[in-house]
């Protein structure tokens, strides 16, 4: 469940300003999708065109707007939890033992791996502020992670689609992630105009 990691600003507008800034920064594909594509070798025109958000993977902007503030925070938090788990899976496939006994891996790759790590920290920071805002709004919730299958039931094993399809799938997932952050930024922007 959701737990604050850092301190919480007590002022609504200060906190809202931080949330807007974070959402704005994190909706930029150069913060996560672009380094992911470079690491996976997807940085080619045909593949870029193909790397589109999979419909239904993430809530639309309209859906987010229609949830009301508490519901919106809860959904955004759950979505970010999903992204963290996906990032952890990607990280696991990247054995970065560096160049054994020599300087770490080639510069571009090391920088891109660093950006993946930064993206994770940014998500944690955003989740922390989401928690603070939910407390400010006086709601307490025990966030059920949306994709948590009911205990004891695991989805039927699907045949391994292969690394290429999984790379593309990761790409489409992150495209959706950036779009959701852009939508969240819009919604937070509208909060600013109407205090309650």
């Amino acid at each position, binding site marked *: 469940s959701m737990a604050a990691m850092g301190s919480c600003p007590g002022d609504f507008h200060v906190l809202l300003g931080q949330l807007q800034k974070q959402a704005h920064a994190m909706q930029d594909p150069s913060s996560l999708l672009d380094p992911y594509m470079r690491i996976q070798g997807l940085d080619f025109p045909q593949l870029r065109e193909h790397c589109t958000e999979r419909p239904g993977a993430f809530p639309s902007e309209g859906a987010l707007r229609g949830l009301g503030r508490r519901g919106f925070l809860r959904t955004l938090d759950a979505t970010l939890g999903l992204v963290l788990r996906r990032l952890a899976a990607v990280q696991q496939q*990247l054995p970065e033992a560096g160049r054994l006994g020599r300087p770490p891996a080639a510069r571009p790759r090391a920088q891109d791996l660093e950006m993946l790590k930064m993206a994770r920290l940014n998500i944690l920071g955003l989740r922390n502020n989401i928690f603070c805002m939910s407390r400010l709004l006086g709601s307490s919730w025990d966030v059920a992670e949306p994709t948590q299958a009911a205990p004891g039931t695991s989805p039927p094993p699907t045949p391994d689609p292969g690394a*290429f*399809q999984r*790379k593309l799938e990761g790409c489409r997932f992150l495209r959706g992630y950036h779009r959701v952050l852009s939508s969240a930024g819009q919604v937070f922007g509208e909060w600013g105009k109407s205090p309650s």
Partner: protein
Amino acid sequence: AEHLPLTPEALKVSVNSAQQCLHLQWTVHNLPYNQEFKMIFQIQISRTETSNVIWMGNYSTTMKRNETVHWSWESELPLECAAHFVRIRSVVDDARFPEWNFWSSWSSWQEVNVQDSTGQDTLFVFPKDKLVEEGSNITICYISGNIQNDISCYLEGEQIHGEQLDPHVSTFKLENVPFIRKGGTNIYCEEKQRKAISNGTVLFVSKVLEEPKDFSCETRDFKTLICTWDPGANTALDWSKQPSQSYTLFESYSGKKKHCEEKNRCNWQITQDSQEIYNFTLITENYLRKRSVNLLFNLTHRVHPMSPFSVQFENISATSAVMTWKVHSLGDYFTLLCQVELHGEGKMIQHNVSVKANGKYLLNELEPNTEYVAQVHCADDNHFWKWSEWSGRDFTTPEAAPS
């Protein structure tokens, strides 16, 4: 003589797709009992249809009646890309039985069809996520099933051109594939009309495992041997396709073996009953290759003493001082050669001293009221291997007494 029907029988063909191998097994029922025969088996392999023989070869072996013979064949083309057909015939190649030296009839064709994509609206690309070594030649194929659209394939953004194997299968020969990234080389195919990526595969190209360089071992205390080496490229790949290469030390006199946790150094315990001569083999291995280097040495010739300590100066006068230092004991019979360096007045003077236990040296002809730096390092006096690190301090001579 009567012509014995020695046609190979019970031919079974199994497939290892990942290794692109056909495994064959068969027997010959009609050989006389209780005797071994030298036999030659001729194997034909066809692709797409039986008339299209792509490989033929002989396999010689000795066998008894009803014994099962095993043989494998590696295909340059992924086995999913086309149906393959196998048949065999035999001849007794035994001087004792010249009358049987004639080819049997062929066995019936055995068909092997790994990927039945007829009637499917999906495009398949093979091999799927294959691990290969940099410099290899690889054949890729796509199977288009029901897809009628014009299909183009790309390797890292560059279009590649293939050959039609049949109306639904195209093959692409990639030569001398380079290592591009740990995440693998992407090959994908696009349906032109729909401008959609139908499918693709990743070729995981591993750097070639290098032989360890500068393999060397030394001891600093006669308790532990420290072996180091330059591992060269790390052949780890993403997606758990290949971990970093492993390193194992094997010492042949003791027969002991140790898996090294680190990739460029390894400690080996020297036990009381250890021998003096060591014959090490450093073995490195990844999924594709194994390499090793050897090192034969005498332990007493590989002593790299630890740096001296407790450097002190006694009886400092205007023109002399006694420098003392301590050394880590390496045994009663061990003599150290220590080198003292004196820096002062823009000059450096060097002196050598043989030392059994702790060291002592008289620095004379010094200048009064002058700052000096004196340092010492030591090495094995009998079999020089390496100097220890320096230890030293500064001191200042007092004014000369008024004469």
